[in-house]
């Protein structure tokens, strides 16, 4: 479904991604595991197209020059130069790092803003589905999103991505700043939405322990380069992964 081939991203002279190649097949959950500054967010921004917008903004204000090489193909078509809004229309939806929500709007309004592309009926259906995935949100419908806790905001952020009806859902560090219990709830929900609505998921995370058991395949990224890849179970038993990410 998604093929990233030899992707290189430079922020001025700093190399953020160095010849990264990966593949996501339809219906899979694929994890990208890496520590801080490994290039996970850059990868997500490149796949979702946000980096194109970032590049233009940086050029406008004379900041860092962002150079992108390599290509990204989605359903057999090259999308490397396509702007982010067209990618969203084609079904690639990103839920960004640190759960950005609209703090001044209520939870329901957040869903309506996110689902602007879809009809009211579609949004209502998906919102009901999101509420079934994340029961704690039901009580908070009318609450301003800025007053939600971190975990609730994360649920809301994933829900906002779902409202767009993605075919490929990109989750950038969905577990960031959540308690182990919240982490489990979010991971369970990701598995559920993958099984129930057949959404393909590409998620990046530094917490390998809760993620690896549920992913079909995973890639380990370090300093912008791919170091390991394999099925979730394989990586779980890999001694290097154990020492680097599980601390054993």
């Amino acid at each position, binding site marked *: 479904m998604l093929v990233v081939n030899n992707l290189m991203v430079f922020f001025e002279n700093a190399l953020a991604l160095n010849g990264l190649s990966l593949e996501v097949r339809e219906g899979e959950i694929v994890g990208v595991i890496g520590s801080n500054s490994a290039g996970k967010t850059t990868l997500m921004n490149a796949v979702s197209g946000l980096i194109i917008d970032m590049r233009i903004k940086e050029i406008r204000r*004379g900041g860092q020059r962002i150079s992108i090489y390599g290509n990204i193909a989605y359903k057999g078509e090259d999308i490397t130069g396509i702007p982010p809004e067209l990618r969203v229309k084609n079904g690639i939806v990103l839920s960004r790092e640190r759960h950005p929500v609209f703090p001044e709007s209520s939870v329901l309004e957040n869903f309506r803003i996110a689902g602007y592309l879809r009809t009211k009926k579609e949004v209502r259906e998906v919102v009901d589905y999101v509420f079934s995935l994340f029961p704690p949100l039901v009580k908070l419908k009318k609450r301003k999103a800025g007053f939600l806790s971190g975990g609730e905001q994360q649920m809301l952020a994933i829900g906002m991505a779902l409202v767009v009806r993605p075919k490929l859902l990109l989750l950038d560090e969905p577990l960031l700043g959540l308690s182990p219990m919240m982490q489990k709830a979010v991971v369970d929900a990701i598995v559920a939405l993958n099984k129930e609505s057949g959404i393909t998921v590409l998620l990046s995370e530094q917490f390998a322990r809760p993620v690896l058991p549920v992913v079909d395949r995973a890639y380990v990224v370090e300093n912008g380069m791919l170091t390991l890849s394999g099925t979730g179970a394989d990586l779980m038993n890999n001694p290097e992964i154990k020492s680097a990410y599980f601390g054993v």
Partner: protein
Amino acid sequence: MKKRKERIDRGIKVRSRDIFALCSWREMLYLAAPRLLPVVVCLALPLFLGVYWQKVLLSVAVFALLAISWDILAQTGMVSLGQALFFGIGAYFAGALNHYFGLSPFITIPAATILGGLVSTLLLLPVLRLRGIYFSMVTLIIPLMLVRVIEATKVFGGTEGLSGMTPLPSRWLELYLILGGLLLVLFGFRRMMNSDYGLVLKGINDNDRSVINAGINIYWFKIQALFIGGAIGAFAGAFMTHVYMFVGMPVFALDYSILPIAAAVVGGPGTLAGATFGAFLLVPLSEALRGFGGLRIVLYGVFLVVFIVALPEGMFHYIQRKYHQFERWVEVEND
């Protein structure tokens, strides 16, 4: 082979960063030239100009001071739309001290600088806790309000204003006083903004809660920044009162609020030097366009828009980057 444009520091910049700078005139010049250039321009330019353009230079310096004052406030996170407030208060202080008490300009200008800074700080004290657009709105409204107060209560000569101020002793003193003041303010406050004190001010703009977390009372620092900005503006105002030998309601005009912001934006905000540079660009341009009559404002506006769209970082940042860095094509290697 794929190629990519690389941006790297010039060799001379790297060399002149350490002690080796002292080994060669070229490196010393590289370091000194950007600092000497404004000094030489400010000191030598008046000698080559006619009386008319000397007056233009005066107003360049005044707008540069207002732009610097705007820039200091903006760097502290207070976007002011009312530099006219500082300018006008300084002008009226100098005017009143001279008119009612007969003090000489050498006393009224420093006194108006300090008093003007204090009064404008006091006026803006209640809105210090407001952020962003709310603060800007208040600064925009206060000068407009003061004009009406003067008109209605007829204080300080009301609509007529006060005239017959003592002029400064000579044209040359006028010029070198304001240009010297400009250089002093420019280099002095540039240095201040790079010191630890200035870092705190910039930090308030970046993330005020983190500054509070560092155990710093941000309101006290904002008050100080406001006083600095206000005093610079008041100095410009007090000076102009003695140049025009008149002070009246026009000192609160919108020009004194808008043009400094335009100068700072065109020149490049955040450096003070950029704001000065912008004033040296915009004020003479506006004079040169006088020949076009009514179309002047249109041309001026078009110039501003083109500039801001084409070079939003500002002239100064662009020139600075070209001075320190160069670009070249390099091959992109895989792995």
